[in-house]
Structures are given as structure tokens and as C-alpha cells.
């Protein structure tokens, strides 16, 4: 397939020798935070260079081939682990546009109580609901945030709603960043129509159109500095198969790190930055998720219709969200315990299966360490309280599935038998569920470079500026001082819009 590459975008195949680049602001990462910052700063006439480790994959290249997507759009094939008992499987996007290219496109404002907590407990300024409202509004306008067109809601989502309605629970349609989404259910492989308004089709082209330059396939090794002054970043282009390519050296007066809650602290640590708070790399929250698979008598064809049309919000005050998430067959097969003939029988019913998951707002935290030779490694141990919440979330998800007509459920607890009715479910969950048996995963990683006005409590200030290091900023979910209990993308974008404005106002101070 031949596709045109936007002006201003350089890929590894374009580069034959070492490059030296001058600019005002270097941004590491092109996801929700990095691309938004790039678009805003370039809008204001600032000379911006974005460096993205992943490749450029345009909309036309996206297909339903899940393994190909995992190989090309995700870091490490989408199979990273936060080590603990149990370990938590997690996935991060690694491509131009970052995780916004492979997420489900849920767009929710930060809950007011979360903003209030950040203001009162961490002293974060200009973060009230009123302060943030214009930034949320701008994010929603730019990304076409809206409810789904009704014809795109699939049967799996309808069944979850039926189950929630039967239980008398509050269930609401999801707000998504989409421009008349077709309901291809291919969000996690990259949207094949461009209807999902990821950074790839919004803030990246906006930034490039305003003169920003983007270097894809380039891994930043270090942020460079001269005594206390930031001087830029250095990295290497990555050739196919991971072979190291030419070097890229960027000279800039400001560096903004936007690599996500795992890579951002790792880059800062290996560049030698320390936080007086001791919080760099700590405070990792990850919204543990657990999945229930339900077998129905009817044909569901869960891959028809939009990904996650609804969210059960009845239990959001208790930190639990529930939604139907169709999994492609390869991902479902990888997650179930059956193998051999039994796996074949289970997967033969693929089109009658609904997969639904619960997300838990966690109270415990993990950390990221940089392990020389291995790279960043996340560690996370779920607390007893959060484990109890996972069990409750699974129970509620299962109850909704039975209420919708499920005949058999697979639960995300190792060794747990299949359950066939609510009585079996209650009997099973009446016994303690060992934490180590829980099969958990996540795509929401937050909080390893937390905001606080107090340099002894946070890594960065209220606007993402690294305490004590002029010219160094962070703009991604690692800013969050705590979990937010909902999908984090819109919060990241709104904070980036707000922090970009602050930086633009102070541009003379940074000489950019």
C-alpha cells in the first residue's frame, strides 16, 4: 500500500545519517498529551519538534488483523506486565498518535470530586471545574466528542443494557471522540475509517500544518542539560527489527515529556533527574480491570457495532465501572483457560459470547523502576480493599449478564469453575477469592510524576513544570496525583491544553 506522508513527518526510512535539529520546544511522545501540546504551541508560533518512538501508520493501513496491530501499534506487542501477585497485564500504544490510536475512544471529563481532591490535597491551582471547563469544551470540540449514532450500537451492548435495566441499575451511553463512528468495532486495531478522532487524525496533523516537525521511529535515550539548564534530547532512530539506526540530537530550550506513566518516569530517571519528593516513578495507579465472558443462546456477533456503547454507572461512587467490550477471537482465546479440544469447542461459540469488564478505581499504588539492560519495569501489588472491589465488580458484571440471559459465565479467577446461574455464582463467591488467582489487565496507567504545588509532595507543579528544573515539563497521565475512576484521555488532553496556555503565556521566560 502506498500512502502519502504528511509534510513535516520524518520516518526512519528517510534518514541515512545522524541528524542535529534546533527548535524551541522538544516534545517526547505524540499521544494525547504530546500531540495536544504540539498543536497548541505550534498554533502560537513556537518552533516545535515531536519525537515519537513508534511508527507512522495512517488510517488506510488499519485492518482487523489483531496480531499485526499488536506488533505495529503497541509497545512490546501489547503484553507488558506490572509485576506482583497477581501481575497485571497492560498495554500501551507506541505509534504516531500514541494510545489514542488504539483506545476505545471514551471521552469523559474528570469527575468534579477528583479535581476538588487534587486542589485540596495537593494544592493544585487553577483546577476547579470552572477553571477546567473551557479546556474540556475545547477538547470536545476538536475531537468531535458526542454520543454514538443509534444504528451503530451492537447486540453485546444492548444485552448489557438489558441486564442493567433488569437489575434497575443506572446505565448511560458512552461519550466518545468520534465523527459519526461507523461501529466497526476495530478501535483497538486502529480505526479503519478515521471516525475515531485520535491524535493521529486531529492534533498531529494540526501541529504539522502549523510548522511542527515530527520524527517517528525514534527512541529518546536521554534528556540533555548543561549544569541546570535543559539543552534538548538525544535518541536513535529504530530500524526494522529493532536495530539501532542513526542518532537524532535535538537542541531546545524546553523539553516536554509525554511518554505515558511508565516511559515518562523511566526517561526522567535515566536522564539523571531526581525529585525532592521521592515520588518520581512512584504512585502508579492502574485501574485494574477484570473480564467476564458470557455465553448466550442467541447470536450476538459482538464484533458488529461500536466498542463500549454504554457504561454501567450505578456503582461509580464505589469506584466500579462496568461495560461490554468485545474481544477479537485471538485475544479472547489467549485469555481463557481452556486449551486443545475444549478451546475449540469454546471458540466455536464465539459469535454467541459477550465479554464485559469491570474497572476498579484503585487505592493502592505501584512504582516504575528503571532496570539497566532491561528498561523500565512496573511493579504493582493490589491491596486487599481493591481486590475485594474487583470481586464485587465481577459479581455485579456476572449478575448483569445472567439478567440479560447468559447461560454460562467464565470468571477471571484462576481455578474457578464456570458458573451457570446466579446461585452458583453466589456460592462460588461466598468463599474468599485469593488475590493471586485474579486475572487482571489494564490500559489506564497514571500517576508516576504527580502534580503538587509542594515540591516535597509532587514531582511537577500545577502546570506540569518539573520542580527545580526550569524548562522541563511533563504532560501525560503520569501527572495525575491519583486515579480518576474513568477513562483518562480527555483529562490528559484538557490538562495539556491548559498547561500549553500557561507555557505560551510564559514563553519569554523560556526564550521560545
Amino acid at each position: 500500500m502506498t500512502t502519502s506522508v504528511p509534510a513535516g513527518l520524518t520516518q526512519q526510512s528517510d534518514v541515512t545519517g545522524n541528524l542535529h535539529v534546533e527548535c524551541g520546544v522538544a516534545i517526547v511522545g505524540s499521544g494525547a498529551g504530546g500531540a495536544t501540546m504540539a498543536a497548541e504551541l505550534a498554533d502560537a508560533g513556537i518552533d516545535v519538534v515531536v519525537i515519537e518512538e513508534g511508527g507512522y501508520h495512517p488510517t488506510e493501513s488499519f485492518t482487523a488483523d489483531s496480531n499485526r496491530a499488536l506488533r505495529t501499534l503497541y509497545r512490546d506487542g501489547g503484553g507488558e506486565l506490572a509485576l506482583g501477585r497477581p501481575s497485571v497485564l497492560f498495554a500501551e500504544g507506541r505509534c504516531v498518535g500514541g494510545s489514542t490510536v488504539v483506545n476505545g475512544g471514551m471521552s469523559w471529563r474528570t469527575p468534579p470530586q477528583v479535581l476538588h481532591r487534587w486542589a485540596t490535597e495537593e494544592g493544585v491551582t487553577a483546577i476547579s471545574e470552572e477553571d477546567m471547563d473551557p479546556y474540556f469544551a475545547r477538547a470536545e470540540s476538536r475531537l468531535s466528542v458526542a454520543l454514538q449514532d443509534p444504528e451503530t450500537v451492537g447486540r453485546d451492548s444492548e444485552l448489557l443494557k438489558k441486564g442493567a435495566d433488569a437489575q434497575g441499575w443506572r446505565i448511560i451511553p458512552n461519550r466518545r471522540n468520534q465523527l459519526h463512528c461507523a461501529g466497526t468495532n476495530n478501535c483497538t486495531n486502529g480505526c479503519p475509517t478515521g471516525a475515531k478522532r485520535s491524535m493521529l487524525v486531529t492534533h498531529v496533523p494540526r501541529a504539522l500544518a502549523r510548522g511542527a516537525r515530527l520524527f517517528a521511529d525514534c527512541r529518546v535515550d536521554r534528556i540533555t542539560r548543561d549544569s541546570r539548564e535543559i539543552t534538548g534530547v538525544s535518541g536513535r532512530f529504530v530500524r526494522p527489527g529493532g536495530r539501532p539506526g542513526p542518532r537524532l540530537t535535538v537542541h531546545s530550550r524546553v523539553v516536554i515529556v509525554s511518554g505515558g506513566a511508565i516511559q515518562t518516569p523511566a526517561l526522567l530517571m535515566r536522564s539523571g533527574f531526581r525529585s525532592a519528593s521521592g515520588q518520581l516513578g512512584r504512585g502508579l495507579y492502574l485501574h485494574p480491570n477484570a473480564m467476564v465472558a458470557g455465553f448466550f443462546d442467541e447470536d450476538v456477533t459482538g464484533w458488529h457495532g461500536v466498542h463500549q456503547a454504554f457504561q454501567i454507572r450505578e456503582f461509580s461512587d464505589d469506584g466500579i465501572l462496568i461495560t461490554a467490550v468485545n474481544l477479537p477471537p485471538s485475544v479472547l482465546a489467549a485469555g481463557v483457560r481452556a486449551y486443545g479440544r475444549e478451546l475449540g469447542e469454546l471458540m466455536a461459540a464465539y459469535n454467541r459470547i459477550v465479554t464485559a469488564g469491570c474497572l476498579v478505581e484503585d487505592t493502592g499504588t505501584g512504582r516504575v523502576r528503571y532496570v539497566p539492560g532491561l528498561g523500565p519495569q512496573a511493579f504493582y501489588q493490589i491491596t486487599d480493599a481493591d481486590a475485594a472491589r474487583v470481586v464485587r465488580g465481577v459479581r455485579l458484571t456476572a449478575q448483569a449478564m445472567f439478567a440479560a440471559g447468559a447461560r454460562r459465565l467464565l470468571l477471571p479467577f484462576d481455578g474457578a469453575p464456570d458458573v451457570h446461574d446466579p446461585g452458583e455464582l453466589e456460592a462460588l463467591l461466598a468463599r474468599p477469592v485469593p488475590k493471586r488467582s485474579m486475572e487482571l489487565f489494564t490500559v489506564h496507567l497514571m500517576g508516576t510524576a504527580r502534580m503538587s504545588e509542594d515540591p516535597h509532595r509532587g514531582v511537577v507543579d500545577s502546570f506540569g513544570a518539573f520542580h527545580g528544573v526550569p524548562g522541563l515539563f511533563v504532560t501525560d497521565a503520569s501527572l495525575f496525583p491519583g486515579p480518576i475512576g474513568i477513562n483518562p484521555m480527555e483529562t490528559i488532553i484538557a490538562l495539556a491544553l491548559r498547561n500549553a496556555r500557561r507555557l505560551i503565556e510564559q514563553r519569554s521566560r523560556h526564550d521560545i
Partner: protein
Amino acid sequence: MLRVNRRRGDRRPRLGRPARQVVARFAEIVCPPEIRAGHRTGDVLAEFELMLGALPPATRRALVAAFLAFDRGARLYRPARGQRFARLDDQVADAYLRALLRRRDGLTALVRRLRGMVAMCYYELPEVKEEIGYRPGPYIAAVSRRRLESYGPEIRAGEAAVLAPDPPVPGPGLAPDHPVPDPGQGPGAPGREERR
């Protein structure tokens, strides 16, 4: 033994022969029986090698080592009578795998991960997707057409709006001593890199 061969210019790392034998045998046990009936073992291996290519070198080496250890570990399993996993008949190979999955310890988690990866590769084969009724290509094409037919003008307007200027964010500045500059065309232009 742990090497992963790489042919020049080929993105797909090739497993060494011992590892190929083990992964192939493992696939025959963990995948449905149709893997043999449909002569799909080679395709699963190819898919697995592609997946390995997406992993960092350390993880890749660790996975290959894990498969080889799994293979050799069968010698300690009494019913295997000192044989490697790759040489066991189906019944004993299945019993060995089942015994490891029953342990519920770190080893179980590792074996489950290996099992998951191989199953994932099997269900990514086009003929297997077809067999279970998963045909997303025609569906995606149909709903994409419907989208354009139903909402074409709005979609084009929305896409064009991405590049349109925004009104300034209302309200006082965040650092009032420094006024917000007018949005303008950025100075950076593609191709300004200096080669040294």
C-alpha cells in the same frame, strides 16, 4: 540453543531448530485438533515468530528459554519416562501441561502465558477466523460505506475543522503578567534539519 536467527532484511526472527520443534509440538497440544487436520502448525509457527519480532530482545530470549525449559522439564515428570516434551505422545504431553497448570504458582503463570500466545496465533489465522464465523472485513467495508452515505457532508466538515483556528480560551490568563500571543503560523518548516 537460545539463539534467534535473523535473516538479512527479514523482520521475522527465526527460531532455532530445537525451539521450533518445541513450539510446534506445544501448538499441537494447546490448539484445537484442527491444527493438525488442517496442516496449520507451520502457519502458527510463522505467526508466532512474527509476534516474537515485536518483543524486546530480552523478552524474546526469555520466552525462547522458557519454551526450552518447559521441554526439558518434562524429563522430571515421571509419566514422561525421561523424555522431552517434544517427544511425548499426545496423552502424556497433555497430562504434563495439565500438571503444570494445576500448580498455581509462578510457573503456572508462565506456562499460561505461553499457552495464551500460541492460542492467539492460531486464532489469527484467516481460515480459523472464517471457521468460527468472524469475518470483519466485509462488515467493516459495509458500515464504512453506510457512514459515508449517511453523513458524508458532516464528516467532511468535521475533518476540515481540525485545521481551523480556534477562538481564544475565555477567562483570565494563567500567568496574567504575560499576555497570550495571537495564534499564527509556526516558524518551523519541514526539512530544516542540519546535517553535521
